[in-house]
């Protein structure tokens, strides 16, 4: 049986992949996916702890995170569309009108 | 004393009358230009009147006030911090208050003709500054003092920046930042002292006489006093913190220079006498050699630099640094005689240097230049102007019989037993101003004409103004008794504490 540590290490790795992805990728959609990866690794952490501690708080938290992530996705994609309409690109290199 | 003055808020009126007058100018900003100058002038004259009315009050001490104070007001203000609205006037404050009212009036007259644009704002700023300076000289609560101390800066910043000449913006910002940086550290020192006092006694107060006598470890006291000294030394200005002064003076309009030299510099000296020494007597005694060195260096250095100036205003600005060096020397010695001399010298310097700047302003206004090289044979063209110029220049150089001589003499006598060396060196500093002053006079008034400048002589109002100042110079020079009497009790109280 997998121990708590395995879950924690997995989620830490996922979180790091997500964070590094945000920093090095150039496509706004991919960056956003990396953010989602970070959020989901957090969800994994919560669930692992919840199971380990026998405490439901973590699972409730996960539901909230998922809901919020969905709302964020809606707004984020809308912003990307607005940007795309004006600039015909979603490359963050093109987010350059002001000093980045 | 023929009338009862207790309960009448003279001090509050002294502080807020100028500001209120200034604000009266706002509604007539866009109309009635004929009202601007008279209203402002009336305010300044009324202020001088109120200040003079305080003189007779000195006969009887105020009830509930610290020793030596004859007018006193005390109300709670920000109770959460133990901040009170405490004002007090003793002989020291009285002299400086009268000086403030007088010099402001001179500044206003000096800008009567040269300032033609944005006149109401100009007078509003002068009056606002007068309020700030009055507040500094009257506050007995450190927070209140700090508040007025900062408030003085703002009008001067605008005066230099809007009506100045040359690199006015640079000078205005330099002036503001220099003085602000020093005073912010003083604020921290004030807060620290407040907290130390509060943790020792459980009474959190910013009142000066509440905080005097707080037991502060000597090393901490040195830091705190150092912060006060820094703020005051910048204002003074003492060598090597004086660099803002020549710039500010040169680029300021006449009224700005007059107030700067006549009044703002005095606030530094006053702060040291009223707050620095009484709050930290031991630390002040430890650091007084440092103050003395700064003072003497300043005296010698300023005279030397003044000699090399080609701009009259710069020359007088450096001579101010020298004169204030004498004041610092007198304070550093902290003996009754030297301290009386220092305070008297503050008043003298206020009158004489304002007069010098006013005269230079008149010349500048007539010819458009302040270069000494441009002038020559002014005596032949404008004898009255030249006479008074000569008079004030000689007063400033310390000619016996005129006011500065008395002050310098007292300072040197009083400091002699404290430090022979400092007095000997400063003695040279008495001679040096004569050298550059004689050069200035000679080149300006008697040299052959170098440029065909048209210099009309003094008008009647200008004449009136300078005659009053000359009379004051002469009076203090020949008969300083009443002023020294007025200073006797505060100086005795101040130096008594320091041993």
């Amino acid at each position, binding site marked *: 049986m997998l121990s708590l540590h395995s879950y924690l290490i997995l989620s830490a790795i996922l979180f790091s992949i997500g964070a590094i992805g945000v920093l090095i990728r150039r496509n706004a959609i991919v960056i956003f996916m990396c953010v989602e990866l970070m959020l989901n690794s*957090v969800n994994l952490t919560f669930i692992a702890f919840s199971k380990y501690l026998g405490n439901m708080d973590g699972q409730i938290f996960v539901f909230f995170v998922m809901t919020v992530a969905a709302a964020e996705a809606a707004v984020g994609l809308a912003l990307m569309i607005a940007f795309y309409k004006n600039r015909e690109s979603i490359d963050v290199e093109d987010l350059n009108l002001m000093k980045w | 004393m023929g009338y009862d003055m207790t309960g009448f808020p003279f001090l509050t009126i002294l502080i807020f009358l100028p500001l209120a007058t200034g604000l009266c100018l706002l509604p007539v900003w866009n109309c009635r230009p004929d009202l601007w100058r008279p209203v402002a002038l009336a305010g300044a004259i009324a202020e001088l009147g109120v200040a003079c009315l305080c003189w007779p009050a000195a006969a009887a001490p105020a009830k509930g006030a610290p020793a030596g104070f004859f007018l006193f007001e005390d109300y709670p203000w920000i109770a959460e911090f133990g901040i009170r609205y405490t004002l007090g006037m003793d002989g020291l404050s009285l002299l400086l208050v009268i000086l403030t009212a007088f010099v402001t009036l001179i500044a206003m007259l000096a800008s009567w003709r040269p300032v033609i644009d944005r006149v109401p704002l100009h007078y509003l700023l002068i009056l606002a500054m007068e309020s700030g300076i009055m507040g500094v000289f009257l506050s007995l609560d450190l927070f209140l003092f700090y508040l007025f101390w900062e408030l003085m800066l703002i009008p001067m910043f605008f005066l230099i920046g809007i009506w100045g000449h040359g690199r006015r913006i640079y000078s205005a910002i330099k002036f503001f930042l220099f003085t602000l940086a020093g005073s912010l550290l003083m604020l921290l020192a004030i807060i620290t002292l407040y907290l130390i006092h509060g943790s020792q006694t459980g009474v959190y107060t910013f009142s000066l006489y509440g905080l005097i006598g707080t037991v502060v470890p000597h090393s901490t006291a040195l830091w705190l006093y150092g912060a006060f000294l820094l703020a005051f030394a910048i204002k003074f200005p003492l060598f090597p913190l004086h660099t803002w002064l020549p710039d500010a003076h040169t680029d300021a309009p006449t009224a700005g220079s007059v107030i700067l030299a006549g009044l703002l510099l005095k606030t530094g000296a006053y702060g040291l006498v009223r707050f620095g020494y009484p709050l930290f007597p031991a630390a002040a005694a430890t650091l007084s050699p440092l103050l003395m060195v700064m003072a003497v260096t300043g005296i010698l250095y300023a005279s030397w630099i003044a000699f090399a100036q080609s701009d009259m205003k710069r020359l007088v600005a450096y001579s101010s640094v020298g004169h204030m060096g004498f004041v610092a020397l007198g304070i550093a010695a902290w003996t009754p005689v030297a301290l009386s001399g220092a305070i008297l010298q503050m008043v003298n310097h206020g009158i004489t240097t304002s007069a010098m700047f006013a005269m230079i302003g008149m010349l500048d206004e007539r010819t458009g230049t302040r270069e000494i090289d441009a002038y020559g044979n002014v005596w032949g063209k404008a004898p009255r102007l030249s006479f008074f110029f000569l008079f004030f220049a000689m007063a400033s150089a310390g000619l016996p019989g005129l006011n500065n001589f008395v002050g310098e003499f007292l300072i040197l006598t009083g400091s002699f037993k404290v430090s022979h060396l400092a007095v000997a060196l400063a003695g040279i500093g008495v001679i040096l101003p004569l050298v550059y002053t004689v050069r200035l006079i000679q080149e300006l008034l008697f040299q052959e004409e170098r440029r065909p400048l048209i210099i009309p002589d003094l008008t009647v109002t200008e004449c009136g103004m300078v005659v009053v100042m000359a009379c004051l110079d002469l009076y203090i020079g020949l008969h300083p008794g009443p002023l020294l009497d007025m200073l006797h009790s505060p100086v005795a109280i101040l130096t008594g504490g320091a041993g």
Partner: protein
Amino acid sequence: MDMLQFPANIAAAAGVNFAAIMPEVILSVIAMALLLVNVFINSEQKAYLGYLSLIGIVVTFFSVVSGWGAPQSGFNNSVLQDNFSLFFKGTFLVSAFLTILITDQYLKREECNWGEIYPLILFATVGMMLMASGTDLMTIFLGLEVLSVSLYVLAGFNRANLKSNEAGLKYFLLGAFSTGFLLYGMALIYGSTGTTRVAAIASYISQNGMVLSNPMLVAGMLLMAVGFSFKIAAAPFHMWTPDVYEGAPTPMTAFMSVGPKAAGFAAFLRVFIVALPAMKADWSELLWVLAVLTMTVGNITALKQTNIKRMLAYSSIAHAGYVLVGFTAGNAVGTAGVLFYMLSYAFMNIGAFAIIVLVGRKGEENNNVSDYAGFGFKHPVLGMCMSIFLFSLAGIPPAAGFIGKFYLFSGAIQAGYVWLAIIGVLNSAASVYYYLRVMVFMYMKDPTEEFDWLAVSPSLALCLLLSVAGVLIPGIVPGTLLDLAQKAILM
């Protein structure tokens, strides 16, 4: 277990207790109603939404005032409406009120007069209020997200304008990124203490001292600090601020620089002071560094800005630094200083932005400092207002900004952080330079423009009036407000 932390006088600790979230409920209902109304009115009538939302804010404000002094807890101790949160709620409502006053004129000028902006501002305010009264990491997170999601839209609200698009997108990407850190920190804290309730975390730690050496708890604290630092724009997590502030519609910049920052501080304070007092030695060291970095980076970078919105963005970073000084002190004076400062900052900063809104015109925002040449004499009253705001930001008496800084630095000295206070005042002295520069242009340079397009709408005039009053009255007679702030601290 939860009962242990709350004094008995707090009403109805468990279960549903609407009294504890009354302001949030009122404001949400009004916002949703406005969203509906918006569908049925034409574009000329959008200003009415603004008026209605102002009324809504006033009503909510009354509910906030009536809750003062009577702490209410509810929903299984996940919200606590105490004086602390009420003071912050007041600050949020003030900032929303002032922002809405300057919004209408801007929207009409920029031709993006869509009514959704008002409900969005209200939703953002609800989010902030939840953050301030959240006593459960979950509530704090939810409040933060309600706030953030609304703000992403507000930043990119002018959808035809590329700069605004860019600001919205950048804010979104970095905001979501920082939320990840915050959440991960929350997860680790939950894992090491077994609860998400703020007070329960503290009692768990005090009962199980060895947990303090658990790297997971330390990592959780650090990650949360990073997340909050993003939200309050503390250096080195401030990179998004200048771009977002510059690109967002000006009224929204004003709003973002005040409300969300205050909300960030509210949650930051609540979590660190209530949940992690046992780690105070660690986090105050961390905050010390953050405060110094934030003040210095903000001020130094602001010195060389020529765009006034960018300059105020860096200045707002620096102000977060001053507030962090009070937070670092962590004592009663410092914490009350944070409360007092955020409220005064709302007045002075939104006031300054109101002037910026005025000076701009369609297609030409006039955001360079040099565009203000001669402004002070062309419009003396507006110039004087701007000077008052700038002097207050610079911390010159008798403005509220001075009293606030005085308060914060007193707290730091009292807690023994003398060097921090010295660095703070030196920074404050340096900051004066860039505020003065605006005034130099306003008063000491010859005008290049006539500024004849300036039209002050009544609502904008009201905003200026309120802001000037809010800067000067607490500056001259701060007694009442200081008293309220002292009653609102967490200790």
